[in-house]
């Protein structure tokens, strides 16, 4: 009897947290369904409309949100892909060999993750203008490495460390080269890790705000900056921002739901075994 009471209490507590966690999202949904003139005059009873979504996806406000959406996809996927291409070998090397400077390099990489964006934003702006990277996909993909590369290297390193080296050694003795051993044996076995880290890196790249704000203007601007663009003018159009934010949740959410199982594993591996 007492046990069941505790069970109910626990469920109630959990429910309470989820109310806290989900209410703002629900509220955004409500906002996004409100007509403009009922934004502040109503709470829960209003005349629902999909106008906000039509406005955001159309170009009525002079804000090409669909283009920003595509930009975000290109830039985030590009950043994740580059991080994987560059980060996987590095993670592999640092997991498999102890060599001079590896720990320093790893830690420096990690510290990027925690570096204040403002340190680099002005130098980067100058640099990008000079190199012609300002407002380009390439420029965004490069700067987003600050966000995605440390994540990829640190989490994947743990995955590789977790994988017994004997599998690759067996491949070497089977007559494969190191490169083949890496691609045919090690890589397929850390696929869950790759899935998880890709999702995480994708989310963080997708949600980044400061870099696209300063380093893009029109061609490569992303959804975060785009969603905020609805807040100008005579009145802030919160319903449009809410709709834009909800639309921009779709890609990471789809990604997350498809590989949720991997995600939990991915986080844990990267976390503890480093």
């Amino acid at each position, binding site marked *: 009897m007492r046990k069941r009471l505790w069970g109910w209490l626990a469920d109630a507590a959990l429910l309470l947290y989820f109310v806290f966690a989900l209410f703002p999202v629900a509220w955004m949904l409500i906002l996004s369904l409100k007509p403009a003139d009922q934004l502040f005059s109503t709470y829960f009873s209003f005349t629902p409309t999909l106008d906000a979504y039509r406005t955001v996806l159309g170009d009525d406000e002079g804000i090409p949100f669909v283009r920003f959406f595509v930009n975000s996809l290109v830039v985030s996927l590009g950043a994740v892909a580059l991080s994987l291409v560059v980060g996987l070998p590095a993670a592999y090397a640092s997991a498999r060999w102890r060599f001079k400077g590896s720990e320093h390099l790893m830690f420096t990489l990690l510290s990027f993750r925690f570096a204040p964006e403002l340190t680099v934003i002005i130098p980067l702006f100058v640099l990008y203008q000079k190199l012609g990277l300002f407002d380009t996909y390439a420029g965004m993909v490069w700067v987003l490495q600050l966000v995605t590369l440390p994540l990829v290297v640190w989490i994947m390193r743990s995955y590789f460390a977790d994988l017994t080296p004997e599998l690759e050694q067996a491949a070497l003795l089977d007559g494969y080269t190191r490169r083949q051993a890496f691609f045919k044996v090690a890589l397929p076995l850390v696929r869950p890790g790759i899935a998880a880290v890709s999702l995480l890196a994708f989310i963080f790249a997708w949600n980044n705000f400061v870099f696209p704000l300063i380093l893009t203007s*029109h061609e490569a601007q992303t959804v975060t900056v785009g969603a905020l*663009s609805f*807040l100008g003018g005579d009145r802030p159009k919160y319903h449009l921002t809410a709709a834009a934010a909800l639309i921009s949740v779709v890609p990471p959410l789809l990604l997350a739901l498809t590989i949720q199982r991997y995600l939990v594993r991915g986080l844990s591996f990267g976390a503890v075994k480093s």
Partner: protein
Amino acid sequence: MDRHVHDRRRFLALTGALAAAPLLSACGTGFGGDDRDEGGGSAADDVTGAFDWKREKGATVKALLNKHPYTDALIADLKSFTEKTGIEVTYDVFPEDNYFDKLTVDLAGGRASYDVFMLGAYMVWQYGPPGWLEDLGPWMRNSSATAAEWDREDFFPNLLRADQWSLKAGAPLGRGGQYALPWGWETNVVAYNTEVFRRLGLKPAESFEELRELAGVIKRKAPGAGFDGMYGIAVRGSRSWATIHPGFMTMYARNGLRDFTVEGGKLTPAMNSPEAVAFTEDWADMVRRGGPPSWTSYTWYQCSGDLGARKAGMLFDADTAAYFQAVKGASPASGKIAFHPGPKGPDGSLATNMWIWSLGMNARSKRKSAAWLFLQWATGKEHLRRAALDGDHIDPVRRSIGRDGAYRDKMRHLPGFIETFETVVDQTKIQFTPQAQFFDATTSWAAALQEVYGGKSAKSVLDGLADDLSSKVG
């Protein structure tokens, strides 16, 4: 100075190999405007011959614009500019929250990403001294570059003067270069909810004391009279430079108070004079007794939004802030908003501070001639009239539009709008002392205001502020 130069050279030699090209930009060509030919005269002098709108046919002008109804009106009318001149206009629009960050970094980066951009008159003080803004004076004066129909005399003179400065801290506006052109503007007055005034039998305040009283009365009585959650007066309160310049600075100036005193080119903070301290205390007291809850988060949007949502009885802010709530169908309060010049100072002063959305030209632009044609058109009678009538480009910078019958017809349904505008327009000017640290000074000022509102002694807070500023501005 010599020592510095020496040091710098040695340091450069040491680290030169490390940082190569962008490093040069740090000390030389990149930041700031020192590679301009400053003595060599204006690019405007290169324009000769008869004026021709089609002179730059085929060129493209790039504009950076703030998300604003004026901007919407401009964008809607761009086609006619292209038809008239054969110049294409591309533009980026950013929300106001990030607009100036974007513009500042862009200008500081020393690139000509944008040929023309929107800016406030205050930004001239920040962007002018580093040489980022083109002096438009030579362009205006060159009859080969400027059409006669542009009619400089048609601008309200105080607006044109507000964008002129000699780039010297403390020097009054209206002298020196023309660093931007007034395009749209706002005067700061009181707007109020006629419904609650009628229900409670209230009249607009004529003095600051009455205003404070009135705000308190509304907050006490309105909720009981069917105005759920209504408070007295909405004024800005967030920790931002933008908190100072509308209502606060207007009332401050009407009380005969100054931000700085200038003596022999030296600026001394004056926001801690005994009169200023007393006024600041009164202002904070008004907010406490009749202002919005969570005042310290209040920006333009919260203030105007509350007036529209019938949460605020009065708004002491830009007339446009109320206008956008007052027009038909914009908000629950539309049709029930009236305008009033606001309380007078002790000596009857209606000195009013203003905000001017101006258009400026990038000193580094490579298409200045085309950019000038664009500025000329955007501030010209033809576009501004269309923008005022078809769009929401109100508070005209040109007298001809203020007198225009169609415009007056359009505004007439807003009680008191035109009367208020005409009452204050001649006394409206920039009440601040021009100086490059304007944003630092007003941001700190807003923070100080918040502290006074939070209960700290106004004297000690403002003394601290003055102390801090005197070293920075001095």
